[in-house]
């Protein structure tokens, strides 16, 4: 009765092939263009950080990778297979290899915290209630939350707590790929670092490939092998690439493109001038 976890897809796959390959991806919402000509590959076992100002399409990028959004043009290959060519069932089989932390956590609010975290275990494994409870407790401890919230509903938690429950839920099945949408936003500095450490330790425990969307340069520097910076399309000329930085995380401050270095240092001067010009018109 269950969709039993498919381990088969891993051993057929060629381990040298990049796990995620985006080619010429374009995403539009009606007349609004959000992503254009995105070519991006993510190799197995690596962590990629995606930065960029608010509204530039980072969340849209993650949702396109997991197949929640279909690209208007271009293709997304996961483990060599084009997502657009998979049937509903095959797509489901691929999706349970992912863990997705939503920006607003997206917890099921009719369920308790325990049921939220254990959801995919109940759906896709044959584990008994006790076993599931043990996994849930372990995940909860990893994200630094007390046991007494297990019986509560998401509405009774603070925003930061919800975010961490979302993280625990995404990690429950020990996915091969983790997509984190701003994992540390809304957390205090200490808790942010706990989450950074968690991302690192998850990677040490088993070979996980991760994409971390973040505004937090500390997180990007600490967890990522590579950083990609997206630039909002409306402020880009037609011939400029949308990815304006793609390289190691430790040299990003010295990037030649001053849009990148300003973003990383958090300097708003040029942006302010631009905004004044727009308003003055």
């Amino acid at each position, binding site marked *: *009765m269950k*969709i039993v976890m498919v381990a088969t897809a891993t051993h057929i796959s060629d381990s040298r092939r990049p796990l995620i390959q985006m080619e010429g991806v374009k*995403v*539009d*919402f*009606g*007349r609004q263009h959000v992503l254009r000509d995105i070519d991006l590959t993510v190799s197995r076992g690596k962590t990629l950080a995606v930065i960029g100002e608010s509204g530039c399409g980072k969340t849209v990028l993650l*949702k396109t990778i*997991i*197949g*929640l*959004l*279909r690209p*208007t043009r271009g293709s997304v290959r996961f483990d060599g297979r084009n997502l657009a060519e998979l049937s*509903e069932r095959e797509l*489901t*089989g691929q*999706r*349970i290899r*992912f863990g*997705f932390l*939503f920006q*607003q956590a*997206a*917890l*099921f*609010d*009719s369920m308790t915290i325990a049921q939220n975290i254990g*959801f*995919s275990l109940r*759906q*896709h494994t044959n584990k008994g209630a006790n076993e599931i409870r043990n996994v849930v407790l372990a995940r909860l401890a990893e994200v630094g939350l007390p046991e007494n919230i297990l019986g509560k509903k998401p509405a009774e938690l603070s925003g930061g707590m919800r975010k961490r429950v979302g993280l625990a*839920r995404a990690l429950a099945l020990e996915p091969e790929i983790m997509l984190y949408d701003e994992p540390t936003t809304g957390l205090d500095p200490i808790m942010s670092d706990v989450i950074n450490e968690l991302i690192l330790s998850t990677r040490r425990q088993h070979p996980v490939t991760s994409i971390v969307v973040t505004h937090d340069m500390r997180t990007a520097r600490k967890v990522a092998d590579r950083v990609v910076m997206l630039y909002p399309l409306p402020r880009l000329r037609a011939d400029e690439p949308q990815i304006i930085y793609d390289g190691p995380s430790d040299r990003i401050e010295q990037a030649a493109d001053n849009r990148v270095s300003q973003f990383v240092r958090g300097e708003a001067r040029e942006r302010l001038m631009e905004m004044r010009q727009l308003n003055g018109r």
Partner: protein
Amino acid sequence: METNPTSEIRDPRSAFGGPLGAAVDWIADFGGVLIDWLIGLGNIATFSLRTFGWLLVRLPRKETILPNFYQIGVLSLPVVALTGTFIGMVLVVQSYVQFRNMHLEAKLGAVINMSLVRELGPVLAATMLAGRVGSAMAAELGTMRVTEQIDALVTMGANPIHYLVVPRFLGCLMLIPALTIMADFMGVAGAFFYAVYLLGIDSHHYLENSRHFVGNFDLFVGVFKSLFFGAAIAIIACYRGFNCDPGAEGVGRAATTAFVYSFVMILLLDLLLGIALDGIYYALWPEAPKLF
């Protein structure tokens, strides 16, 4: 269900000016509305087919079905019973004077019970279900859509139609007959009480006439129709919820449109099924007793 960003309908505004331009614009607008409407119809048809498909493939688990059944069935009983009783009594109040003027008081039972069992019971139960359960389902699923919970289900490998729609559909389909029978029963009882105890109509004639004219087929017609109403309510409510517009406003609109569309659909189905079933009835029993 994936949100598909690709659908884009170009707006073919005319380059004409003056009255001709206005006319062309009007035709273009009308065409646009028509196209939207057809697309909507196609989407809801696909949505229903996918729901029916899951019914054949794999049923949801008990834990997801039971809470929905409780909400839909058990919690709706009181309000259905109450409104049923009142409708029965109101019918007596309304018809009594006219029937007395024609000296047909004794036939009152036949007419009232017939309309209760065939029409008012099922329509009333369905309306109550649409108002109480349909709009709540649309609002709940709409909230889930807006707060990305439906997307979260998808990423966790659960099919939202199977997980969210099928239990609600089954609940409405399987429990609306019970609600209809409840409405029928309470309506018949309320009417009898009012007619016999408050208006003093002779109970023997009232009951005899009812028994003579209202048969099992009439009861069956009512319950049979209710199945269609239940299915329509569930599909419309879930569809409105799944296609909810962003924000609190979108959720509110999903809830109200779910009710309005369900109500219109209930009346439309009632008319069509009424015509069809009457045809069947007189084909099967050409000698059936007629009221007058």
